[in-house]
């Protein structure tokens, strides 16, 4: 099969391959994607194959580049980037029929790899025309037989493909809905080597800039029943215990919660979260969660860890109460961690804490209130903050006095620890905005927030948000301002974004969320509450059978019958005679046919001759039949019924 490829066929095959590559390129890193595009364009433009050594060298350098970008680890995104590199190299080698076939085979796999990374509607919308182009290239390849004449039905080809795709839809949908799904995966999804941006297990001053610019949704929440007030919408992610002078990290490894969860002092709220993939192992819950959601487990610090890294959209329900009494005792280990401060840094803060401790004696609550008052009097909120030095907290508290949640929570926690009150930093999200089209809340990545928790005797861990203590008139700029400033479109487009997000949420629910559990309840209208595998297979067989029957009917039907009512009436007339035993031969003209049946059925000879004569004159003689003549002829043709040959004349059935 070393036949050369005609240039038009090569062009179509390469176009199909590039269209399949496009959704995959959108999932790899931008610089790598651009280099791959350049390589692919060079390969397309080259009419003759390069020497093997040059190709090997190019491929080796691409592989090296991919590995360098992903840091020598082999994860899911490395695999996708490798596939993209392979496809980008392929145009250099596509000059024979055999090469074109392998190119199309591998490019069919590319959209699938893209779906592993992103399941949004954009990827699917890009993949569908790619599949159409792929089918077109396959059809052109199938026509390439050596010695075959050039195809004279080029327009037919596009029509064939369109019809093929449309006719495949019933069978495809039957398979999608009814093919039995796996309840749990057979093997796990490899993790990405480059994690997505988002909340991690550390809080450092530099990580926030990227997050504040990201207005993509982090999670979408729908409340069942009453919704909490906006100021109570704190979303708990991670708890950080250890501070090294600049960065907060997890420190203590939390264990699964033992014993009963806290006592809600307010009516608990139920809600359903759909969490966008983060590649990390925590679930975001409303502060404070009371129970472990399905895919995770509640830990001793009331954060929820998930069993698997969240690589795909995850939906779970949660129960939380915004005011909860968590009256557990503090273990010595926890106390030690909650009071530890790095030695030798932030002396002024320590001095201040010591001074306040003297003034308030043993009253922890007064201490907290004192700190919050100070914040309200002297501090301002802004996102543009000069970088801090070695004594970060001192610089913030006594020099700049401007910052955002990172500074406030860090400084406050340090102050409390210096004053002997166990405290820790909580990382998560705050607020969100309500999408009125879909009746749900969207929490975006830029709503990331950090606050503190202090342990008060008799009350346990209590949430304190020092950032909220800033006086409103001292809020210099907010995240919204930043978003508005960087936004490409004016804010009057906000309803459009809301609708878009609502559409995306419906996509998530209906398309992405269809899993084994939902499939089991698919047959509920038929009375089967939870369909078993065997029932689903039977349903699939029935559905597939119906779809195939429809396909067969369309295919066998071929071209539709001619539109002219007179021709149709004549064909019905000949069919009736055929059933009576007098078939019209394909080569017989209407006149001679009429003559023949007139001889065979002498009782109706006159009528038959007249019908065939008029039809022949309409069909072949010049000039048009008058409209009422034509309709009369049609009526007579339709009315005609053959009489048995030996019936006496005048008798009609």
């Amino acid at each position, binding site marked *: *099969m070393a036949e050369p490829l005609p240039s038009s066929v090569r062009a179509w095959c390469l176009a199909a391959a590039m269209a399949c590559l496009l959704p995959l390129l959108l999932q790899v890193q931008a610089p790598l994607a651009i280099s791959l595009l350049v390589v692919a364009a060079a390969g397309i433009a080259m009419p003759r194959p390069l020497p093997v050594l040059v190709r090997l060298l190019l491929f080796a350098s691409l592989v090296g580049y991919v590995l360098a970008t992903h840091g020598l680890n082999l994860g899911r995104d490395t695999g996708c980037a490798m596939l993209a590199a392979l496809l980008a190299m392929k145009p250099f080698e596509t000059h024979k029929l055999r090469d074109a*076939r*392998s190119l199309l*085979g591998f490019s*069919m*796999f590319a*959209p*699938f790899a893209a*779906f*592993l990374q992103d*399941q949004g509607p954009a*990827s*699917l919308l890009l*993949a569908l025309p790619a*599949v159409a182009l792929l*089918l077109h290239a*396959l*059809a052109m390849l*199938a*026509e390439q*037989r*050596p*010695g*075959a*004449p050039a*195809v004279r*039905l080029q327009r*037919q080809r596009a029509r*064939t*493909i369109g019809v*093929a*795709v449309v*006719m*495949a*839809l*019933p*069978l*495809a*949908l039957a*398979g*999608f809905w009814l*093919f039995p*799904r*796996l309840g749990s*995966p057979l093997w796990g*999804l490899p993790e990405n080597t480059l994690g997505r941006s988002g909340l991690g297990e550390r809080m450092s001053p530099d990580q926030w800039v990227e997050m504040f610019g990201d207005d993509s949704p982090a999670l979408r929440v729908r409340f069942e029943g009453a919704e909490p007030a906006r100021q109570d919408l704190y979303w708990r992610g991670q708890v950080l215990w250890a501070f090294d002078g600049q960065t907060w990290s997890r420190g203590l490894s939390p264990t699964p919660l033992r014993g009963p969860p806290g006592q809600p002092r307010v009516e608990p709220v139920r809600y359903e979260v759909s969490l966008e993939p983060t590649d990390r192992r925590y679930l975001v819950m409303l502060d404070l969660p009371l129970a472990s959601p399905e895919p995770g487990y509640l830990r001793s610090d009331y954060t929820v860890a998930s069993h698997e890294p969240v690589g795909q959209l995850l939906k779970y329900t949660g129960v939380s109460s915004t005011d909860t009494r968590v009256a557990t005792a503090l273990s010595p280990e926890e106390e030690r961690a909650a009071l530890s401060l790095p030695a030798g840094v932030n002396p002024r803060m320590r001095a201040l804490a010591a001074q306040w401790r003297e003034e308030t004696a043993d009253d922890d609550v007064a201490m907290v209130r004192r700190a919050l008052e100070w914040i309200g009097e002297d501090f301002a909120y802004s996102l543009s903050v000069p970088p801090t030095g070695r004594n970060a907290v001192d610089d913030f508290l006594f020099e700049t006095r401007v910052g955002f949640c990172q500074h406030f929570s860090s400084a406050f926690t340090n102050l409390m620890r210096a004053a002997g009150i166990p405290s820790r930093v909580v990382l998560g999200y705050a607020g969100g905005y309500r999408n009125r089209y879909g009746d749900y809340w969207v929490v975006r990545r830029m709503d990331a927030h950090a606050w503190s928790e202090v342990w008060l005797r008799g009350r346990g861990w209590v949430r304190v948000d020092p950032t909220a203590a800033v006086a409103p008139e001292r809020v210099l700029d907010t995240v919204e301002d930043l978003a508005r400033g960087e936004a490409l479109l004016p804010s009057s487009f906000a309803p459009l974004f809301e609708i878009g997000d609502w559409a995306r949420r419906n996509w998530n629910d209906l*398309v*992405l969320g*269809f*899993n*084994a559990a939902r499939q089991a309840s698919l047959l509920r209208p038929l009375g089967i509450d939870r369909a078993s595998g065997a029932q689903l297979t039977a349903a699939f067989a029935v559905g597939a059978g119906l*779809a*195939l029957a429809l*396909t*067969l009917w369309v*295919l*066998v039907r*071929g*071209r539709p019958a001619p539109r002219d009512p007179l021709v149709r009436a004549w064909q019905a007339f000949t069919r009736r005679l055929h059933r009576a035993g007098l078939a019209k031969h*394909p080569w017989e003209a209407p006149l001679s046919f009429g003559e023949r049946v007139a001889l065979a059925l002498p009782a109706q000879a006159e009528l038959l001759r007249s019908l065939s004569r008029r039809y022949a004159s309409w069909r072949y003689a010049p000039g048009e039949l008058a409209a009422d003549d034509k309709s009369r002829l049609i009526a007579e043709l339709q009315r005609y019924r053959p009489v048995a040959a030996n019936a006496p004349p005048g008798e009609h059935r």
Partner: protein
Amino acid sequence: MARSRDLIERFSERLAGLPLVRPRRPESLPIVIDRRRVYVLPTAFGLFLAVMLLAMLLGGLNYNNNPALLLAFLIIAVAHNSLVHAHLTLVGLRLIALHAEPVPAGQPLLLRAAFEASGNRVRAGLELRAGDEEAFLDLMPGERTEVVLALPTQRRGWLALGRLRISTVRPFGLARAWSWLRPESRLLVYPAPEAGVVPLPDPGGDGQSRRTRSHGEQPHHLREYRTGDALRQIAWKSSARADRLLVREYEATAQRELDLDWFTLGTLGHEARIRRLARWVIDAERQGSRYRLRLPLAVIGPGSGAEHRHACLRALALMPDG
């Protein structure tokens, strides 16, 4: 034109020898292809794509990745429908005529096959294959299409057609749908005439040398043209004058006849005799003489003309092996 076959095709041709494969016996024309004698198997490329699709399906099911599953099911459905489409392209096809002009052994035999189809589907991309030779055709509904295959010939006599294969890989080249045709038609191959300069035997009769006079001086008469007369014999000038076709018939040749005798070729072997007689027949016909062919089992002639030539060459072709 010969073409290499891929693994699946070689496999399917080996399967054709199995007793269960239809058609089981040679059949008479017209051969109608019905749905029970159409076989569909994937091509190598189709198998490769099937493996890819299976991987996509398994991956999608495992990770419950719905867009991937949608895409996989869509492509699987399109591929499956293309199998049905290929099957339906062949069903209802009819081989209505097979015809081949006999040729001398060694020259390709041009087999003309005429196809027709029922229904109103367009059947595009059909391939007819006999041995290593292939021809391509497209069939429009209601039309009769003829296709020519050049079959190589080695021996004289009846050429066994064996199996013809009509197949298609369209629309997407993922699978080949084919049907075997075993027509009962017999095709005749004339013996190869002897090469080189071979003089015709002397004619009996007058003893007058036929080279002494040029053609124009020999006694001849003009008669009306009869269907079957060689175009060579038409007297154009006379015909133009008389405004109808006239043929010049030489009385000399009307009386003289050549005797092509098997038994005068005692020095040659069996096949060599046949070849020489074939050459004589061809030369005699070209010359326009009347000739009689004497064979051990038959005497043909005397006569001349295309039909006589065919009868003689046919008898020579069907001579039993010596």
